[in-house]
């Protein structure tokens, strides 16, 4: 064989790497590098006033974190907020998708209306809700008064602030879930559902034995998305309560802002960020374990 042929072969072998290199470079510049920088920063005492001059202080920031009661509150708030928004967001979205998946008059209009919450920009939606929750004149209080429940301090009481924020979050997330689940429902073959009916299954059994297994992978994926979004969510919480009252709605992300831009402590803020990252990775890990197990079971 002549040399040029060999080198051409080598070149061909390199092509896949070239293709992978492009997204890899992109991820490197915009993800891994900032991530590494942040990890490094969490090991320094960098201040916002002097961002380039931080000294390595080891795990000092993390020690500080573990000794701070606000950290545990934030972690707790983040986990509760994430868990409940996933359960209610995905649950409500899936139920609406099921309800709307059959033909009925006015179906297109109902779909459009249900998508509204998702289509409105975050900040605008939050401002609308700020007005709804508004103490004396808000619609929410008018409703509770009309129901005979009296006035509620939606955003200013420690007990109600987090639930109020979760209501807004679910309102925003559920339509997206519905859209995705509608697409997943299209993939359920009619004939398999009909087979179950012939085999004597009632509606609930058809759902449990046929529909649900088909849409479960999508449901898990969308849960992963909603969870990661919840861990990272900022605008809704910041605009509605700013983390208060008394830190009762201060998630890790809200805490990062506070530490970095009000306490000027970039090192500690980075440590908060690292914890958030670990949380998101854990969620992703659970998802991948489920995926792997399913792939193994289904191919048997």
């Amino acid at each position, binding site marked *: 064989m002549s040399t040029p042929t060999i080198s051409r072969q080598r070149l061909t072998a390199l092509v896949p790497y070239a293709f992978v290199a492009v997204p890899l470079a992109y991820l490197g510049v915009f993800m891994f590098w900032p991530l590494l920088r942040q990890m490094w920063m969490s090991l320094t005492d960098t201040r916002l006033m002097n961002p380039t001059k931080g000294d390595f202080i080891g795990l000092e920031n993390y020690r500080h974190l573990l000794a701070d009661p606000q950290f545990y509150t934030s972690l707790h708030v983040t986990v509760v907020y994430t868990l409940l928004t996933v359960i209610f967001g995905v649950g409500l979205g899936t139920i609406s998708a099921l309800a709307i998946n059959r033909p009925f008059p006015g179906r297109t209009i109902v779909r459009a209306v249900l998508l509204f919450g998702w289509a409105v920009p975050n900040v605008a939606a939050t401002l609308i809700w700020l007005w709804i929750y508004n103490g004396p004149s808000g619609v929410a209080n008018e409703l509770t008064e009309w129901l005979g429940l009296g006035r509620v301090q939606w955003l200013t009481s420690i007990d109600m602030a987090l639930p109020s924020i979760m209501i807004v979050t679910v309102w925003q997330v559920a339509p997206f879930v519905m859209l995705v689940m509608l697409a997943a429902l299209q993939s359920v*073959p009619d*004939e*398999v559902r*009909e*087979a*179950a*009916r*012939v*085999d*004597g*299954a*009632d509606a*609930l*059994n058809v759902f*449990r*034995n*046929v529909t649900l*297994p*088909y849409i479960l992978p999508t449901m898990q994926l969308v849960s992963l998305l909603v969870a990661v979004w919840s861990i990272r969510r900022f605008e809704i919480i910041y605009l509605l309560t700013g983390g208060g009252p008394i830190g009762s709605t201060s998630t890790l992300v809200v805490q990062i802002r506070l530490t970095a831009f009000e306490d000027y402590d970039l090192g500690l803020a980075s440590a908060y960020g690292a914890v958030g990252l670990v949380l998101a990775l854990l969620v992703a890990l659970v998802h991948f374990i489920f995926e792997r197990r399913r792939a193994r*079971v*289904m*191919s*048997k």
Partner: protein
Amino acid sequence: MPKIDFKGITKSFGPTTVIRRFNASVEDGEFLVLLGPSGCGKSTLLRMIAGLTDISGGELLFDGALANDWTPKQRGVAFVFQSYALYPHMTVRANIAFPLVMDRFRKWHHIPFVNMVQRWKVMRQPEVADAVERIAEQLELTPLLDRRPASLSGGQRQRVALGRSLVRDPSLYLLDEPLSNLDAKLRTQMRSEITTLHQKVKRTFVYVTHDQVEAMTMATRIVVMNQGYIQQIGTPDEIYDTPANTFVARFVGAPPMNLLPVKVAGQTLHAEGDSHWQHDGGAPKGATSAIFGIRPEKLRLTAPGAGRLPARVAVIERLGAETVLGCRLGAEAADVSGISTEDLVFVRTPGHPGFAHGEACGLDYDAGDVVWFDKSSGQNVAATPVVSTPEPAFEG
């Protein structure tokens, strides 16, 4: 065990009518085949029997009781889908057991966890476990019981689908082209397996196919359909020997029945072109023109000059045990180079007839084997029509 009566069953999807005034009855223990070209409404009819599609008009009677509005479950039928429709997330065992599990399901089992425990218990009940094992053995699925449908071959999936329908011992089996996805060899094998099964379980089968070989080999009775109309109902032999009209004559048999439009002048028949021959048998009374039909195997090849019809060999197909020849009529050196097989007369003859392409030959037949059809309506002239179609079925 039900006797099923169709009384003027009609089905429309919006403005399009798919089944028109379908009248028939299925006796207990019958193997009824619905035969017809694609899109003629076979699946629709089967789905109406199963209760998966609602009936637009007419009455469906199960043992004389009006069943139009019964749920699939109430009808107690088994349905084998064209696409098998197995539950992909369940093992073969769970697929086959599913109808039994559903039979033993009570409303309160819907409570979460109770549901899981109950399923687990039902699957272990001896009568369920044994039934599944027995069916699996019968269909040679035992080694596959713990696999999932995705990892099975087409034929294996087919058998799982059959097993799932068999396990509950329904009185009526509905099968929608269950063999259409299989290769030729497996199809032949499954064909005889289903026939054996029918003889063994002694239940009523309604079997949809567009494959006339399946229909001829399996059916005790055949319903030939076209465009939503029944063309003929009869045993395979009746359908084959005395087709009710030219559509049935063409649709059943391969190659199909030869149909020649002829002018009748006393004992002489004039075909298109200028070929004519002596026909000493009876012709339709009083008609001057008719359609002359004869099965390819009823024609005999003779030496040129002998036989009633002079012809020339245009196509030879050797099938091994027999040979099919396409001949062009006419004594003169007719053009045999054309590709069109439209106007060929087909002859089926055992072994190798020893004629070469382009050679002249003669064709002969017994007058008793001829089937006559009306020129304009396409109806069989001798047989009383069993037909609901008001339109002429002959289109050539």
